């Protein structure tokens, strides 16, 4: 708790500073509220508009947590398979790239037609957004192996499976987490985009509706929630990372 406060004050103060600059910027340059509402304006909507936006939060949170979890799972499985079977790696690497280059406007009708308007097509979209950085980072982590340890494992007669579980996997964990952090950052936007596949509730829906009736303040309220959820997800992942990777030397004994 204490460390949270200690670690939190810097980003918090930077954010506060940002808000203050923004507020003055809007006031001084007389920027119209429909273009860029001032933080105070957004804050008022945040407080008063609860009954409008509240019901939209949970569906998106749900969507992006499920999507991120599945995205992680699929990213990890894909990365692992491509690593273990070099034949597949070469063959399917281009497919990975292709999967990231299919625009949502093409995918959307297909997904809706095949899977309807339920959660499934939306989760597929989030997975598509999330799995890629994880797979790439993981493949990269698998490569950076200490030669001496690898040679030891091989000479000791370790099977491929043992080499994987005892060496490659723990060795790739830091890279994996770097990938998961990138994915988590994208997952909320992924969820919002996925709601364009026809949802009746969700931050994405709320944002679209606000946008089309020129309520920019509400759009920004939506953004605030998108950011908040992202930060929370990221915080959770960082805590999990700390718990998983405990073997790194703490720097306390070293200077600086």
């Amino acid at each position, binding site marked *: 708790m204490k460390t949270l406060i200690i670690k939190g004050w810097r980003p918090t103060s930077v954010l506060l500073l940002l808000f203050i600059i923004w507020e003055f910027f809007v006031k001084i340059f007389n920027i119209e509220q429909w273009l860029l509402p001032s933080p105070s304006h957004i804050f008022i909507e945040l407080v008063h508009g609860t009954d409008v936006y509240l019901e939209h939060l949970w569906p998106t949170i749900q969507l992006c947590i499920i999507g991120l979890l599945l995205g992680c799972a699929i990213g990890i499985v894909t990365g692992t398979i491509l690593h273990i079977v070099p034949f597949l790696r070469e063959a399917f690497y281009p497919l990975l790239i292709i999967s990231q280059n299919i625009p949502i406007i093409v995918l959307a*009708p297909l997904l809706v037609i095949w899977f309807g308007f339920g959660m499934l097509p939306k989760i597929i979209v989030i997975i598509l957004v999330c799995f890629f950085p994880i797979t790439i980072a993981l493949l990269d982590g698998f490569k950076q192996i200490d030669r001496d340890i690898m040679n030891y494992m091989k000479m000791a007669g370790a099977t491929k499976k043992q080499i994987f579980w005892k060496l490659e996997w723990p060795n790739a964990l830091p890279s994996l987490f770097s990938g998961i952090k990138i994915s988590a950052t994208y997952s909320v936007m992924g969820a919002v985009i996925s709601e364009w596949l026809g949802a009746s509730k969700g931050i994405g829906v709320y944002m679209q509706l606000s946008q089309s009736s*020129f309520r920019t303040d509400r759009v920004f309220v939506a953004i605030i929630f998108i950011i908040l959820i992202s930060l929370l997800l990221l915080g959770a992942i960082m805590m999990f990372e700390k718990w998983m990777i405990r073997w790194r030397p703490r720097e306390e004994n070293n200077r600086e």
Partner: protein
Amino acid sequence: GNNEQEGSPNNNESNEGLEKVKLVLDWTPNTNHTGLYVAQDKGFFEEEGLDVEIIMPGEATAENLVASAQADFGISYQEGVTLARTQDIPLVSIAAIIQHNTSGFASLKEQNITSPKDFEGKTYGGWGSPIEAAVIESLMKQEKASIDKVEILNVGNTDFFTALQQNIDFFWIYYGWTGIEAEMREIPINMVWLADYSEKLDYYTPVIITNEELISDNPETVRKFIAAVAKGYEFAIKNPEEAANLLIDAVPELDAELVRKSQEWLSAKYQDDAPRWGEQKLEVWKNYADWMFENGLMEKELEAEKAFTNEFLPE
């Protein structure tokens, strides 16, 4: 405002005997759709034995969803149906929501653009479709002005108000929504209405669509649906204020004042000079398709008779 998803809570049980029907909007809900929400809220659909779910399409367009039978009905516009049909997509327009084209070219009052000839020497901000240039050219021809003197700038998805900030002089808007917003913001604008300058461009937008299959297999559903919708729009025509409130209740995320003002303006335009709400004329379909063909916007000619039908409208 859960109506569009769950129906009114008090008649949950009676839902069971109802026929489930899906309707896809063209984009976010607005006053073009008031009649639909009225029909739902007032129970007109239920009276016809229908349980209607209204869906926002997002990236999957209404045309695609209706054509592939993912949705039974959708909101589209005449140009969309025309283009789709020439690509062998079996869509049929079954009602015109608004009788006349309420779109036009908007500009700031101080620009003094009151007729197409004033476009000369000005900058138009559009989304890059060849139709825009063709429309502007057609209008300007009426007054013997030349489109060569208009600078056409592609502004992508930029909205009217943002575009104005970037030295865009005129912009194509639907008055019923964007124009009203301008009124509310007290930005005085001039309109050059499409319908005023060319009969051919007085096309239907928006329209209600379904696919050919549903019409041949299940005409009764279509009839019932249109009957309820017609009742909804008639209600909106007579009670703009109440109708607006129903829409606001159903979609509270919309700006309430904009909806009210827009409804006030639009209610009279739904039926306008037509004998009944929803009526479509062959010549409108023909005129516009011909115009598109002449201007090279289409590769094939449209069989206009097949593109629409008045058959399901209530007497």
